[in-house]
């Protein structure tokens, strides 16, 4: 139960952060 909820939640958060930071990096590269 804990592994199911915690693992999914953490995974979603990490993927979400990675996508955001990747988009930010791409955007700042494009600006340069």
């Amino acid at each position, binding site marked *: *139960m*804990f592994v*199911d*909820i*915690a693992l*999914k*939640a*953490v995974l*979603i*958060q*990490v993927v*979400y*952060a990675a996508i*955001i*930071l990747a988009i*930010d990096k791409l955007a700042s590269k494009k600006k340069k």
Partner: protein
Amino acid sequence: MQVGIITVVVLYEIITIGVVGWFITKKSKNKEGEDEFALGGRSLGTWAVGTTMCLTLLGSGHLTGTWEGALTLGGAQIWHVMANGFAMSLGAVTIYRWARRMRITTTGEILTTLYGAKLALLVAAVNIAVGWAVTSFETQALGIIINSLTNITLPICVVIATVLRFLYVVIGGTKQVAMLNQINVIILYAGMFGALAFLVWKLPGHNFDTIRNYYLNNPDYGEKFISFTGGTQHFLNIGIPVCIAPFFAHMTGQQTIQTAAACKSEKALKNIAWFVGPMNVIIGAISICLTLTARTMPEFAGVSNKLVCSQMLISIMPKWFMAILFAAFCAAILSSYGGFLMGSATVIAYDFIKLYKPKMTNKEETRYIRIGLVIGMVYVGIMAQALPTIVLMFTWIYSFMIPVLWLYLFGFWWKRNLKVGLASCLISWIVACIATFGAGFLPTWYTNIHIAYQIAVISFVVMLVGNLVCEGKPGYFRSKEWLESESYRIYLEEKKNGNA
């Protein structure tokens, strides 16, 4: 009365608050620098900002609120917690970063720059209400902890909690709260993982299978209750609203923007995106498992949803461990309280008092913030006596901050029109109030649409259509005001040094 546990918890708080307070006072004695009390001199690094933001949001919503909420919402309660991570990660590269770039202290200052003082005052007033509402939930949460330790009735515990919490923030300021958070976050994690380990060790087979089977075999709950989303319908009606309301509120609120504004550089701020989300959801997931386990125990069948988890912890965990765990809970709740109460008090001083005293010295600012803290503490103490359901109230009050995100986004990058901004806020807030207080007279299909959805859609449509139809000033970051400002010059310097 758990005298031993109380002694350890009180000693822990006195030592940490006392030592940190003394250290801060000593360090800033000869320093009356820019924004020292409210912004910690804009000197905080990634870890300090990330932990402060996390612990500000990681209070009653993750602990007592989740203990209570998970017993009605089930596993989908995790989405309330997930919202904080979503908001902080995205905010770090967008709104928080842009706010810091503007060198502001309050959300009111952002809106004054974008739309003028009228709209800023309106939103600042709502921001204060949100901050005080949250601190009243935090007060209730600390009351629940004190109740578990002393068996004194909950309303009296709430009064004790009010006084204790006030001491937490009034001595130092943002920097003190930030320093304490770096200690408290370690204690909280040790305490929560320890509680989980103790519980798993006590359960048959050292896993949650028996708990899972209890809910699967109980017709009142079923499989969906303990699942991650609670099923499609439950997710749409409950999961998303409990997620989007805090998401918008934390993207735009004083509680997070003030901490972000204290960050030493944009680069340091962006890096918090990596760890704030996981840091938050782990605590929420542990809380959900603790409370779902507590509800299955027959000896606590008569205990209310609000108190069942803390009662279970007290009775099954060793006393020495409970002392650490409750010190950790108090630390998290105090931290959240500190962040929100400080946020509201800063808004009072910067957005309201400054209207009448535009040339305040740093000393005067600090005095007015402290007055704001006292007013907030008294008001919050009275409100907390009503003991509302924490997560439902969080969702409701946070929904009122939804239009502010549209105001920021449109105002930063597209167009600024005061009347459109005012219309967006007022129309959506009025509709939300009618939907809430007139629920008895309205059709069921309409009252079933959560106010978070209503406010999000109405405020966005008004902003979009209004700005398409009406004239307005160009977005702030595309305007001359920005390019000619001192903040822009500082931003260029930071960029040159690779910090932005």
